[in-house]
């Protein structure tokens, strides 16, 4: 039987975890500083981000979001809550959108990640980006990259026939109706309240495609 593909984990010294669990339950007495600091487990991770290969050495705890923002320094993907509750961190991994904050980078070995920077640039906007500008589908701009990654994916999900909560006929073809888009976009919160405009931007792009 195949064994585990023991993943290369560098474990200089004692695992940090062990020390931590002792500390959290121990009585509050100041202890002498340990001579050597336990190391943090790190792992090699390679990601293909916007077509470019990145080889990183990461703390296992690094989320895909923080790998992008803090290590690859692609800061277009935003951290709004870090708990999957706002959608600002939405990126497209192997063709589907996910919350990059609730995924460890190490889970994405070899994955293809598309971030907002991979969709278009200020001089060469993706049609969805251009539609957001035209319809003012944003205000403060912080949720916007996530909104746009979702918007692009939503149209794709509708095309692929993924049902939603507002789909009446589960077996019929899906259409990019206003309600379908609004329901499917609901995992992307915009506190500035640009929803009505985002729906119009998406309708324009969906119309062009249809």
């Amino acid at each position: 039987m195949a064994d585990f593909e023991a993943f290369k984990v560098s474990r200089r010294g004692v695992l940090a975890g062990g020390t931590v669990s002792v500390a959290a339950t121990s009585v509050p007495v100041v202890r002498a500083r340990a001579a050597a600091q336990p190391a943090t487990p790190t792992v090699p991770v390679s990601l293909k981000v916007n077509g470019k290969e990145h080889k990183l050495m990461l703390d296992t705890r690094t989320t895909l979001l923080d790998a992008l923002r803090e290590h690859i320094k692609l800061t277009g993907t935003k951290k709004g809550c870090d708990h999957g509750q706002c959608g600002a961190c939405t990126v497209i991994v192997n063709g589907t959108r996910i919350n990059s904050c609730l995924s460890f980078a190490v889970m994405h070995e070899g994955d293809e990640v598309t971030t907002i920077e991979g969709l278009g640039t200020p001089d060469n906007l993706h049609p969805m980006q251009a539609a957001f500008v035209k319809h003012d589908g944003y205000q403060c701009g912080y949720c916007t990259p996530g909104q746009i990654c979702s918007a692009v994916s939503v149209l794709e999900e509708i095309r692929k026939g993924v049902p939603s909560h507002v789909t009446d006929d589960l077996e019929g073809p899906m259409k990019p109706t206003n309600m379908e888009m609004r329901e499917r976009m609901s995992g992307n919160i915009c506190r500035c309240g640009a929803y009505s405009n985002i729906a119009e931007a998406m309708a324009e792009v969906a119309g062009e495609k249809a």
Partner: protein
Amino acid sequence: MKFDSPAQTNPIDQLKIVGKPTPRIDGPLKTTGTAPYAYERHNVVPGQAYGYVLGAGIAKGRIKAMNIAHAQQAPGVIGVLNTLDFEPAPLGSQNTANLFGGAEIQHYHQAIAMVVAETFEQARAAAHMIIVEYEREHGNFDLAKLAPDAPLVKGGNGEPSVDSYGDFESAYAAAPVKLDATYTTPDETHAMMEPHATIAAWDGDKVTVWMSHQMIQWGKVALAKALGVPQENVRIDSPFIGGGFGGKLFIRADVVVAALAARKFQRPVKVTLQRPLIINNTTHRPATIQRIQLGAGKDGKLTAISHESTSGNLPGGGPEGAVNQTQLFYAGANRRTALRIAELDLPEGNAMRAPGEAPGLMALEIAMDELAEKLSMDPVELRIVNDTQVDPMNPDRPFSYRDLVGCLRRGAEAFGWDKRNPKPAANRKGRWLIGHGMAAGFRNNVLRKSGARVRLGSDGVLIVETDMTDIGTGSYTIIAQTAAETMGLPLNRVRVELGDSSYPVSAGSGGQWGAVNSTAGTYAACVKLREKVATALGLSGDDITFANGKVASGDTSFALSDAAKNGEIVAEDSIEYAEVNESHQQSTFVAHFVEVAVDAYTGETYLKRMLAACSAGRILNPISARSQVIGAMTMGAGAALSEELAVDKRFGFFVNHDLAGYEVPVHVDIPHQEVIFLDETDPWSSPMKAKGVGELGLCGVGAAIANAVYNATGVRIRDYPLTLDKYLDRLPKV
């Protein structure tokens, strides 16, 4: 530039660029993820270490002991900033709660330590290793319990104050139609998408903070005080702000601990408040209990108006000014307004978008709906008959421009209000109870000094520098429009630089005062630049025109850039207001119309249509102004239907302290929204003849929704938010 009398015809009136629907000039940056927000500015200073804040686990008391040893030993840790090692940081004049330092705990999740480490993961892990022993003290957390004994707020003379005019008591007693009802609004949180964040770095005794802040100058003054350094040693840079809504008006713990840690550990430090900490660590819109009494004649004319509101705050904190609009909104010869405040040990209550008016109108405008029903009068008409063109408590003082009636009429027409069935619970379509509601709204226009510097380069590019911020409001774009219009340049020849405290002090972003004042300040600087340009080109006389990139006088014409041939021309000025504020009341007005469908089985409420008609002076950019209004309507929809911080009255904290527990509206909650701007100008406001619009959309919309739910169900709910548990038992039997 002094502004002391109504604006005359000026270059802005050309309206070649100002007033035209203009997509945001920062749009390509924001939509491609290339606009830099505070926490992500890797390039501004090398060697940034990561901070992670620990919040207090109790609401009131003291820290007896804090064991940071394990945290200090944890991998990657550079050091721990311990509140016990510091005196409480001196507070800025607008802050109430202690931001950092000392053993005293004033509220839940008060910042008590920050771990600084090489990585975010290390800092977060180590922060969880800190062991704190507390001495808990009794605290007050229940507004309803304290309200009956809450004292009146003191007025300017230090005495408990009631604002009154005429004789309310007698007029109310004599009124043929009366309403006396109590309304409540809950604690709410800003929930801006970008958490509070700062990168701080010292260079000798000077500190630079790259942060997310609405009011650069206020922040600079407060931070200097907190750190005990001269103001000139503090620089703030905040070019992009991921929303604030009042939550970033005054500095919060992030910038204080980042700066203290950067100094202590001699490393640039970056920190963001983790989302579950923000709600209790920062400020919120305080809950209110509001009693409204209205007395009217059979003709609907108000004869007596009383509005009293009670809210809570930490000792020393202010009240939620929920009665303010009631002093000015409707006519009526006898009136009384008062604020009461209870001392609570919940987190600090402070400004949130349309402070005062937002909760105040949520109550007042249900009351008006109730009164209309008692009078058997159309609620639109009731508001029209009670319109006033003067300050009702100072009839010699007119409104500078007020077309609430226009808002009501235009809005009603566009919405099809006349087709509404005024009888409640009488419009059922299958399982849906359909309802229509309306409300009016009001928000003052605030004039504040605002400065800007403009630089004309030899390439003909004009750069505007001001510490004004763009919190999603569209400042970049309207400032560029203003400069382009005044200097006769196309928009793409203007660059706007914002949010840096080394730029001239502006009005900043708050109280919907940003747009009018910052553009007026830009206009002032441009007018000065025009003079300098004329001088440089040797032009004089009063026929000089600036158009199409050219400066012309008589037969002579130059390219504008010619003026800067021998070097950049710089001009700086501010707009300053005198008297216009006192002699005329400046306000903005809105009428909201809403259609809802309430599920007759479950009580779920869905918004079907929303329309707002606004009277707000000249609209500088219809695109971004409309966005401000629909965004505020969205926030108002949340306040009406789902937003509420749940208070744990035993332990004294907001329990649902994240974005899953505190439910702001999502896409599917919000229908297509329509906004009408009345075509008008207000020359009393400024040379721009514009007024604020950023908060107006929030004013009254919650009540319009509540009134629509009443119309749909026949159930009058006076306690926000209108969650289904409050009326389920009064829906039709199933």
